[in-house]
Each structure stands twice: as structure tokens, then as C-alpha cells.
């Protein structure tokens, strides 16, 4: 890792993502288990269309407008939700009966939540039978032009030249939360106990050990690719730059994000008479363009063209990449098994 100005990126194949939350839980168990991080889900998977997490994040602003940094809304704690404490003791031990004599159910203590990390799961859009949705995993985009870094008044944030990972020196962070205002993806959290902002560290200790990030390596859907963008032999470069089927989320935010998405191909719609419309898709093109920009149409055409080839019994190099016959192909050079990572004193 001697090269400078390299960029690690990830590609999420939305045709493989099943919204199972394994990435979110893997991340949470590993990284946000300490003081003040109870509500922080650095990686979330939400249902699109929907309000996502934090609630309504796409309307909160931030990023660059006309090449100028803009500070958007600071998401409120209630818009993230989560970090819930439940009344286990009340239910299990001795205080089970409510005032009316009926038993008290397991619920969040105190005021009942109205939002959470995955509140609008599987609600989606459309009208039955043409209802539709897809799953969108999101974490810090480790942007090439990180608005958070530029916005930080304490110079606590920086982007590592050797891999492009965006980090924060929490010792220098003064808790202004300008980073969170500037981030258009609203993936920066505030640690209310410690008074510092926090976000996805791209599993830096794992990356240093050659281990793929937890969200990627634990993804049972085999939906997440990892690698350097400039590694022409790796799947990231091929999907992003050669086949151009992996798109950044909201490129118009101007931060040049490094998380890419293979757009979803949903089921065929049902016509009013109950027959099948073989020519279109339940997921509106306009929604995909809104999320991934106008290039998504070409990406979808490429994907569908290659899928048509294999349906006819033909071969497709693109399909082979997306299938990933060997799981480790997903991770480029980051294929070390954590069990092989040397531990101090062993």
C-alpha cells in the first residue's frame, strides 16, 4: 500500500440485496458497542421508496451546490430513532400486570418511538398488484470530495491518501456537527455522551489487516464488492468503469461518493386486465433516475441485455462477475480470513 491517492470503493448489487440487515448488525456488533453509540447504525438498509434513515434524509441538504459547500439540516436524534431500552424487567419479573389487570407487553421504555433505523421496512410504493420496492444499504460514502472534511471547523477530519478512507481524529473533534450538516447522505452521528461526531471508519483495522469490511464479508447475499477503483483486474473497476453498471447514489450531491450500486430490476407489471406487461418494470425508471442519475438507464439496458444473453443459453462476462462463482472474488485483495489475523501476545 505504497501508492498515494488511491481510493477504496464498494459496489452493492441491489439485485442481490435482500434487506436482511446482516451488514447493519455485523457493523453494530463490531463498532458501535461503546458508550454513546447505542443509537448509531453506521450501516443501514432501508426500503425504497421510503423515508429511510434518518427520516427524510434526502431532503435535508448538504453537499455541493454549484461547486459550493452547503450546510444542510442537522438530523435530530428522533429522526434517527433507535438506541431503544426495553421493559424486560417489567415483563419478566414481577411487574407484569398492568393497571387493568392485563399483562404489559414488551415495549420501548417511556415514550413510544415513531421512527427507527428501519422504520418503513417493506412498505414500498405503487398500488397492488403493482406494488414494488427494493433495498438500499447505505454507509459513509468515503467521498472523493468529502463535504464533511471541508466543513469541519476543528480540522479533525481528513481523507487518507493511500486508500481514500475518510476519518476523524476524535481527540480533535469539538462536536460542532458541521460535518453532519454538510454530509448530504446524513451518515454522521453524534455521540451525546462523549460530545464527538462519529461515522463509518470503513473497518480500517480490518482493511489494514487485509480483511474485507464487516458489512461486505458478512453479507450472506454476496451483494457487496470491495476493492480499489484503479485496480483494473478487480470487479470494482470492471463494474464501475468498464461495464458502467454500478452507479453512485445521488451524484448530484456533488461529493463524488465511492459507494456504488447496481440498479435493481423488479418484476414485470400487471396490466389492468390482469395480463403481464412484458416490456416494462414495476420499479419506475423515474425513481431510479432520481436516485442514481440519468446514467442509470444505460446501466439497466446493459444489465438487461446481458441477462437476455444468458437466458438464451449464452455467456456473459458481466453476469459472471455479478455471480461471483468464488465468494472471494468479491473482495479483490481483501481476502484475509480474520481468524488468521495475528493477535498481540499470541
Amino acid at each position, binding site marked *: 500500500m505504497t501508492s498515494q491517492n488511491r481510493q477504496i470503493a464498494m459496489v452493492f448489487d441491489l439485485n442481490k440485496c435482500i434487506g436482511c440487515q446482516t451488514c447493519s448488525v455485523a457493523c453494530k456488533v463490531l463498532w458501535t458497542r461503546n458508550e454513546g453509540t447505542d443509537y448509531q447504525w453506521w450501516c443501514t438498509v432501508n426500503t425504497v421508496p421510503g423515508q429511510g434513515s434518518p427520516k427524510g434524509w434526502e431532503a435535508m441538504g448538504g453537499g455541493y451546490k454549484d461547486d459550493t459547500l452547503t450546510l444542510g439540516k442537522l438530523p435530530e436524534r428522533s429522526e434517527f430513532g433507535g438506541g431503544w431500552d426495553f421493559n424486560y424487567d417489567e415483563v419478566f419479573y414481577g411487574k407484569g400486570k398492568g393497571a387493568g389487570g392485563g399483562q404489559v407487553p414488551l415495549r420501548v421504555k417511556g415514550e413510544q418511538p415513531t421512527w427507527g433505523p428501519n422504520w418503513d421496512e417493506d412498505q414500498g410504493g405503487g398500488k397492488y398488484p403493482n406494488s414494488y420496492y427494493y433495498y438500499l444499504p447505505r454507509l459513509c460514502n468515503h467521498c472523493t470530495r468529502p463535504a464533511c472534511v471541508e466543513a469541519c471547523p476543528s480540522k479533525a477530519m481528513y481523507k487518507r491518501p493511500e486508500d481514500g478512507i475518510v476519518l476523524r481524529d476524535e481527540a480533535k473533534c469539538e462536536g460542532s456537527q458541521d460535518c453532519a450538516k454538510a454530509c448530504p447522505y446524513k451518515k454522521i452521528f453524534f455521540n451525546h455522551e462523549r460530545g464527538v461526531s462519529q461515522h463509518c471508519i470503513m473497518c480500517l483495522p480490518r482493511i489494514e489487516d487485509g480483511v474485507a469490511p464487516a458489512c461486505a464479508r458478512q453479507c450472506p447475499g454476496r451483494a457487496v464488492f470491495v476493492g480499489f477503483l484503479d485496480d483494473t483486474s478487480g470487479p470494482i473497476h470492471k463494474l464501475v468503469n468498464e461495464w458502467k453498471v454500478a452507479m453512485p447514489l445521488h451524484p448530484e450531491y456533488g461529493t463524488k461518493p465511492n459507494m456504488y450500486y447496481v440498479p435493481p430490476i423488479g418484476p414485470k407489471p400487471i396490466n389492468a386486465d390482469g395480463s403481464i406487461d412484458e416490456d416494462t418494470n414495476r420499479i419506475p425508471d423515474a425513481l431510479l433516475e432520481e436516485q442514481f442519475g440519468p446514467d442509470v438507464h444505460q446501466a439497466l439496458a446493459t444489465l438487461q441485455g446481458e441477462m437476455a444473453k444468458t437466458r438464451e443459453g449464452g455467456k456473459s462476462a458481466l453476469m459472471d462477475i455479478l455471480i461471483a462463482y*468464488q465468494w472471494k472474488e468479491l473482495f479483490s485483495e481483501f481476502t484475509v480470513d480474520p481468524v488468521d489475523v495475528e493477535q498481540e501476545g499470541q
Partner: protein
Amino acid sequence: MSKNAETGTYRGIDDIYRENWKWDKVAWASHCIDCYPGNCPMRVYVKDGIAWREEPAAVFPQIEKGVPDLNPMGCQKGAGWTRTLYGKDRVLYPLKRVGERGEGKWERVSWDQAATEIADAVLDAVEEKGPESVIAPSGCNMHTWGLLGRPLYMGGIGGLTMDVNAEMNDFAPGHYLTYGAFDPVSSIDDWFHAGIILIWHANPVYTRIPHYHFIAEARYKGAEVYTIAPDASPSAVHADYHYGLTPGSDAAFSLSMAQVVVEEGLVDETFAREQTDLPLLMNPETKCYLRESEMEDGGSDEQFYVWDLKTKEAIKAPRGTLFWGDIEPALTGTFSVTTNSGTVELQTVLTQMLPRLENYKPELATKICNIHPDAIRALARKIASRRTKVICSLSNAGKHYHGDLMERAQLLLFGLTGNWGKQGTGVQAWTGAFFDGAMTLVAKQSKGPAELAMMLDMIDAGNAEARAKDPTLTEAMIKIEAAKNSDNGGMVPPVFFWYRHAGCKDSWQKKEWHDPSMKREFDEYFQEAVEKDWWAGQDFPREEQTPRVLIECGGNVLRRTRGGSKMLLEHLWPELNMIVSLDIRMSATGLHSDFVLPIANQYEKIGFGIPSTHTMNLTFCDRAIEPPGEAVNEYEAFRRLSEKLEERAKARNFQPYTDARGGEHNLTECHTKFTRNGQFLDEDMMADEMIRDTAFLGAIPSNASLDDLREKGYYRWEGLGIAVRAHSQATDPAPDETFAPFRKHVEGGEPWPTLSRRAQFLIEHPWFIEADEHLPIHKDPPQIGGDYPFQVASGHNRWSIHSLNTANHLMLETHRGAPHVVINDEDAARLNIEDNEEIRIFNDQGEYFVPALISPSAQPGQIVMYNGFDNYQFKDWKGPNDAEPGMVKWLHMAGGYGHLKYYSMNWQPCAIMRNTHVGIEKIS
């Protein structure tokens, strides 16, 4: 481990993060619970004696060239399992109830005190009502140690253990009727070979998280994915087509496709002739096959005929092979045959089926299933031309009242189109076999392989004896017959317990909740079945054997039982003098128990996943840390109960007795028998014994041992072993191929374990003929629950395995932290229901309260109430089962005919819950 910390412009991340990426021990892990098929090899990373975190091991090689490997396998529940170890629902010490049942007042007691009080209750029960009054519900989450300890404990007493397949309702009656075994299971990677994938009666996006990728990858390889479900379910998200059929109309849809296949000449005739009974001759008047006994004096009742197109005569269908040799059987036609009683006009089974199929021409079927005729035809043609596989966790169809009809119709379609016994084809159920050592350890008297060698000799001798009488018997048939004549490890079909003692009688007797073709009262059928001895040896407990002690281990009978806690608390609970829950956590049942005993969780004991051909591996979970508090594994828990039972029996001078089924028991030596004179106590030693025995019996490498497994983490099946359910797969595992069951039938012509020796679509049982179900047909779901406008059509949830994990705070944060019911947006608007508003769901059986999640994905008139939330997550602890009467179909009490006879996990009535009718209302 300074890494490149000194290079470039690097500045450190907070030390907290680095600390989280440190550990001092790693062990193999998995979650050997009732997560079927589970078996995800993982590793648990231990730090300072704490199970810190876990991660998929991802060590599988690619099995078959051109097929993706199985890595990484895992899910969010597994990824957050450590949080269940340290969760607030964990039980750490023996607890004794000190308030009313369900009041939540507990006192911590010693194991000794708990075991003593339980022992006296058992002795009292045996004295008062007989050993059949000691009941163990199935408890599917206990695995390795429960499967060893519970049968030893219950067997010592002579108590009754309920058949897990009926309790879980995971039986597939239509498969059983057709195949003689309900449980074909292909390996997960075999999905990749399918050209058409039907996600049908399943929601793999929720329930097959570790395996769904094979569907996505098959799609990229050229397969077309169809999701057939009333709702645009989560598994419709990535499908090419979603067929939103009317709930309960699946049989009509299948029969319609079968009609298209026949009408358009797309039948795979060779396959249908060989594999099915469709060419067999039957009498249209009697609805019965032509039998040798009608043709020859002293002829067999089990020898059937086909019409040979070459010789133009009725010829005996060979019973020893599916291959026809020189015979050219007519698949269709009407033929005059001279029998002992004169000339009769006979037809093939397929010909008898044809007028039925005409009732389901797409233009007619669309009125039932609401799928457009063009869409029916399009899919039928594809199924006939490409390898087609139904993807499901296990057949959910059996959870419908007419699930047998749905399955039989589906199999008819597959039998006509050549879609089983080949890679990339077939339907799925579930199986558990192969890990024979776990079973032999219950029976063997001493360590080592000597007894197994004797057992193998006995099996060989038994096979030889059986084949001397009938050389056409296959090994699977001999094993099934032996199972039918065994005591099934003390398991009985729970139907008798439910009907006589649990309160189900009230709902089952409501004729209006059954199908209109049930001509007589349910009770008349029930009594006829008992009186004719169709369930001889199984129909326990009797009326007078009132249950007195209930021992729940690894299950949650109050949540699971259809009819719900309301029914059980009213009918069963008052009869019980002792209720014990052995569990890792507080469940609804635990909360209503007299004692709750703490059980070690995964990572705190050795464990093995459910051994299945779904995953093809014996998966190992090690004891990475010691159990907390006073938790022990299930074997040790039952051993302690057994030890105290022996002690109290001696003190009370308890005399030996014979149970109602003829088993002899002496409780003054039950613990001695349990441990085989103290030989079997140590967890490692017993695990090693199980592994070595399994190797000896052929399913895993011959040099397998606990030490070796601690290195490797898993073994792939090398052979079938000795278990009946392995042999009914009818395929030998191969090291470099995906597993597809039934290849011996298709490639080798091995006959099926049915009366006709073929996949059997004609069921001649008089009850079936009376109901017009002797051949596949569609019937609308009955009005279960009463006359209410909504139907419950849903399956398992995403966030828990049954109710295990349901209270894990991480899982709760990935949804709304409380149960929800999905209702259609227009229905909600009409009823003025807001999103997340708690509503009342009710019918004539019961009611519950649950917040609504409003989505256009639900079909209007459908509600999706995912299964798995524990009762205590609902207001007043009333779970959804309170409004599910759990009807059983009267025909499933049938016996005395061909292969319709109970053996463990197989032919028996199951309490269904799909298509229950309910009302919804705002709580004003």
C-alpha cells in the same frame, strides 16, 4: 500490529476502535437451534472470557464446477447472537414461581430443590393418571443435548413426547400421499441448476437469508424467477414475475397449468409412464386400481396393471422397477379387461384425471386464482421446457387446510413435465438424518463401535429376511416399514393430545369451519379412525390419561400451539400440576411455568446443526466459553432431573410399572439407565462418541473425531448412513455434485415407497373417494374462524427463528421494536386505520391487538401477520394464535390403506393456520 500507522499522513483512529478488533480466542460456532436448514459455519471471537462477536467462517470450497460456492452463510440473527447470550431475557438460575402462573413472581432456587419438586410431581402423576400423563411438547430448539437427554428421561418414565413435525406443522401431506415420504430436499447450491425458479409457498428473502444468493445468481445465469404469492411479498422484489394469486387457490393454478401441458402435448411421457401411477388402470366406477386379486384367484391386492399397447392386454406393472422393459404402457385410454367377475371398462389414471383438468382450463381457473389465462399458459409452457424447481424453506403449503391438494396438484404438474429426480428440479420439504451417532448414543450401552457393528449385522439380516419374502423391497421401504412398527422414540402424533386434552375439540367440531365435503361430524371420523386401529399404539393420551406434568424443553408451546395460549390456559393448564420450562430465555411458556431451568446457549456448549441435505454438512459449534450462572446443557439438565427422580422413587419405594403401550419402567434405576452406569457424563466424550459412531455408520469420513472436527469445522456427507429419512432421499451424496433427491427413482428406476410403487396420484381410501379427493382437485379454503372479510396469509418473519431472538434488542431495532401486521393501504384507508396504529384482530376463536404496518404489498383482503413474535410482545400477551383455531383436515386421520400409516415425522394430522378468516377494527 502497528500496520502502516507511521506512513504517509496517517493519523490514528480512536483506540476504542482498535480494541474492538482484538480477541484472545477463536472457536467454531454455529447456531444449532431450530433454524432450518441453518448450519452456517461461523467463528466466535472471545475476549476476556466474553463471547465478543461472531462472523461467518466462509470456508467452503466450490463443490461443483460452474456452480457458486456456499460462502459465506449467515444472517443478522447469527451476526448478533452474542447479544442473546447477554440479553435481559436470558435465564441464568433455576426459578420457582411464587405468585400465580403468569404473574411474573419468581424465587431463585437450587437445582436440587427444583429437581426434587419436579420428581415428586412426576411420581404423583404416574401414580394418579399413569405415565402418559407426563407430556413433553416437541421443543424444536433443543438439539444435540436435548435430543439425547429428553428421550432418555421421558423414555425412563414412559411419558409422551409430541411429534415435532405436527407441532411445527412442517409436514407436507400431499408429498406423503404422492411419494410415500414427505421430505425431498435438494442441496441449496442445486437451486443454481434450475431454469425456472418458482418461489411458491415461501418467502426466502426472509427465511433463506444465507441461501437467497443462489436465486439471484441463477437469475443472472439465465433462470427466470417467479414469485407466486397473494402478496407482492419481499421475495417478489427480485423476481421477474409476481403472480398474485387469490389466497388458497394454488391447486387450481397448478391444475390449470397441468391442463395446458396436456392439451398442448407438452407431457414428458416417458417420465410420466415411469415415475407415476398415471398409466395404471383403474375402474371409473369404484375409483380403484385394477388388482391382481380381481384377475386371479388368490391374487395380490397390491399388484396393479397397465394396458400394454404392444400386446393389447392388461399387464402387471412391475413392482421391483419403474422401468417397463418390453411393455409399452398406454398413458391414456379406455380399455376392456376381462376380470374374474366379467368384462369391465377401465381407464388409465391419467384418463380419469383429464375431465377434472378440463374444469381448470385457464379461462375457468382464472376465476378461482385470479391469474390471467395468458400468464397461466406462459408459465406452463416454460415449466414443460425447462428444469423447474420450487424454492421454499419447506413446504408451507401443508399449513393450509387443503395443503395436501395444493401439493398433489403441484406434483402432478411436475410429474407430467419431468421435474423431479434431476439437478435443478423438484419441490422441497425438510429432512434430518445422517448424524446417526446422535441417535445411537440414546440406545447404546457402552462406548465404542462394538454395538454398532452388531446393529449393522442386524440391519443386514433384517434386509435379507425382508427381501426373501419380497425381493422387490428397497432399503428405503424396509426402513420405513421398520419405522412404522417401532415405538418412534416415544413420540406420538399430538392430534390425540390436542383433541382430548388441549381444547381443540371445541373448534374442530365446528362443521362450518371444515370443508363442505366432510359429510359426517368430525368426531365420527375421529372415532372411526381410532376404532379401526388405524392409529394403534399411537392414540395416546387417552381421555382418562389427563396430563399432569408438562416438560417443555427448547420450545414454546403457549406461543406455538394453534388455538393459542387462551385455549391452553383455559383447558390444559388447570389440569397440570407441574409445568417446567428448560430454556435459555424467558418465553411465553416460561412465564406461565412453575419452574424455569437455565440452559446453556450456543457457544456455551458443543452443538451440531440439523443434519440435512439442504446444507450437506455436519456443522460444529464448539464450547467457546463456560455457561453463565447455573445454566447447563439439556443433557445435563435432564440427567439432574433423572437423578432426583431415581432418588425420590427409591425414597417412596416406587414399584416397577408397565405403561399403556406395553413399555416397562422402573424409576428406582432410571438415572443408572440414563447414564449407562455413569459412562455418559462428559460433554466432549459424548460429542466424540457421536462423531465416531456417525463415521462408523458411513455418513462422514471414517477418521472423524471431535479433535479432527475442531480442526476442520464441518464434514460433508459422504454417505446416507442408516436413518430412514436419509434413504428416502433416494440419492447418494457425491463430493463434487449438487444434491438432487430421487435420482435413484429417475436414473435407476427404483420403485417408490407407496402402495402402487410409483408416485401416486390416485388415493383409493374410501374417505378420499367420498370427498372426491381420490384424485387431485382444487377446493376453496373453508371459512375457518367464522364469517369475516380478511384472510391471514403469511409465514415466518425476518427477525427471529420462531420466537428465538425475538427479544434481542438488536433485532428489535431493525424493525419497529414491536410486532406488526401488514395490511393493504386501501383496506386501511377504508377502515380509517393509520400506520403504526394498534388495531384489534378477531374472529370466533379469539382476538389480539397489534400495530398495523400499511403497505400496498398486501393483497386487498389479506393480512400478513408474520409468525414468530412471542405472546408477551402483544397487549395482554394474546398472540396471533389466539385467533387461529388450528383445524385439522379430517382426511388426515385416515389409515388402513397402503402407505397411509404414521411413523416419526410422517403421516399424521397437523393443525393448520393459513387462510384463517378474521375481522379488523380500530380500537376506539
